[in-house]
């Protein structure tokens, strides 16, 4: 995938193209006419008050909403020009678009098996190859040195911050193109949070990152683009610097200056 992007360097295409996306949970209209293009190798932050639909939008990018009963979607989501709600195999979609969740959710198995779960799912059984993937993924998630001596230990014994970096490593192990992060630091202490933020910035050279966050400083610190959501609508989308310095919409301004939310 990286190779393709390099040859495409001159005309860098949008990773995700979201067109007229509406989403309903039963009768509730959770997302209203979202239009959004997400560039590759950038961090895009989704901000907005609770219940504004930012997590819902994130989850519709790898079809995790399929698991929610009564969820209905109209409109289009294109990944590299392919309609993800069309013929695309949902398991392959989720291999290409990985996800890190709000609460660290390592499986109750060893650290090694956690990382190897994804590659094994996609058919890799060679031990040497798996060893290599585990090491590379943990290195990419900047946690190899901490964990290399305890790969056979249960992942549940790690601290919250370590668990979350393990989950990032686990997502990296299936070689995704995009990583969706749903408030990845909301359950973590400040030091772990800053490690995850540094990691996200490091990873954007190789991956496209979309991050939902409640923390506006976080969005301002690490994202390239920011989208502000309110009551299911996307109010404003633009360069993070511009959104946080000269927002075009008064609602954005009110939110980022802390007048509500």
């Amino acid at each position, binding site marked *: 995938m990286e190779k393709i992007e390099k040859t495409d360097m001159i005309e860098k295409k949008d990773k995700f193209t979201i067109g007229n996306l509406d989403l309903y949970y039963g009768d509730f209209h959770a997302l209203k006419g979202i239009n959004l293009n997400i560039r590759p190798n950038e961090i895009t932050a989704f901000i907005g008050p609770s219940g504004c639909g930012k997590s819902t939008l994130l989850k519709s990018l790898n079809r995790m909403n399929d698991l929610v009963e009564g969820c209905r979607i109209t409109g289009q989501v294109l990944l590299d020009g392919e309609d993800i709600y069309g013929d695309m195999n949902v398991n392959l979609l989720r291999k290409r678009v990985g996800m890190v969740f709000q609460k660290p959710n390592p499986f*109750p198995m060893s650290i090694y098996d956690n990382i190897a779960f994804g590659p094994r799912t996609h058919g890799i059984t060679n031990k040497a190859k798996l060893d290599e993937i585990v090491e590379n993924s943990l290195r990419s998630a900047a946690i190899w040195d901490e964990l290399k001596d305890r790969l056979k230990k249960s992942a549940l014994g790690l601290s919250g911050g370590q668990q979350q970096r393990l989950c990032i490593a686990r997502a990296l192990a299936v070689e995704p193109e995009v990583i969706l992060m749903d408030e990845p630091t909301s359950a973590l202490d400040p030091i772990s949070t800053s490690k995850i933020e540094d990691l996200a910035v490091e990873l954007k050279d190789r991956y496209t990152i979309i991050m939902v966050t409640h923390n506006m400083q976080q969005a301002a610190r690490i994202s390239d683009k920011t989208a502000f959501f309110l009551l299911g609508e996307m109010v404003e989308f633009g360069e993070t610097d511009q959104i946080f310095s000269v927002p075009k919409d008064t609602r954005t301004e009110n939110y980022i200056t802390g007048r509500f939310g």
Partner: protein
Amino acid sequence: MRKDFLSRLLRFLVWAAAIITMSLLILLVGYILINGIPHLKASLFDLNYTSDNVSMLPSIINTVLMTIISLLIAAPIGICSAIYLVEYAKRGNKLVEVVRITAETLSGIPSIVYGLFGAIFFVTVLGWGLSLLSGAFTMAIMILPLIMRTTEEALKSVPDSYREGSFGLGAGRLRTIFRVVLPSAVPGILSGVILAIGRVVGETAALMFTAGTVAKLPKSILSSTRTLSVHMYTLANEGLHVDEAYATAVVLLVIVILINGLSSLVAKRLGKGE
């Protein structure tokens, strides 16, 4: 003053209730042990049962066989139906409600009813006669709802975040269930299975009508067999070997206590998440 008296009276009553419960248990166990232990003889563990030496070893072996066969039938069906209910069926699905109500009703039916059903269906209609097989199928039907319900609860208690994590990596439903959900649910499932074993070991009525009372090692799966509980019932009922019945009760008691202990040990050990 009155209030003080009332609260002291209440305290006495609850204390007395606790003492009564405990002493009943001690009395019962003590009575069986005192009457049974002196009659525990090596000859009671002979491989051959005769009307002179009412050995219980064949019955112990029969109990094990009965338990294994009925579990082999009931556990896969119970666990799979629980997987369907929790992992596949949509919420508010009519079938789920029906299955659940059926299971609950089944678990409330007295065992003698299972016995009569088994006697009519397996023994007579299918022509299996009084046999290990008829008994095992009857037991399987009896423990099926128990295994299904405990497995269902165990699966429900697996956090959804595990499922999300697995789906998020591109794993399908089958892989998610067998590699992530089921391993986490094993302690709960196991304690259900152990409870089911306890039911089979303790059953008499339903087995007398389906497996019969032949106290010998079965020649085949269609031989009539006598489990330990039935053995004890028969000895006590015939009135010729009451002492041996007490000795059998001791062995049965020990087995049941062991199973219960094992069950809570397994639940505790595995429930902590390794």
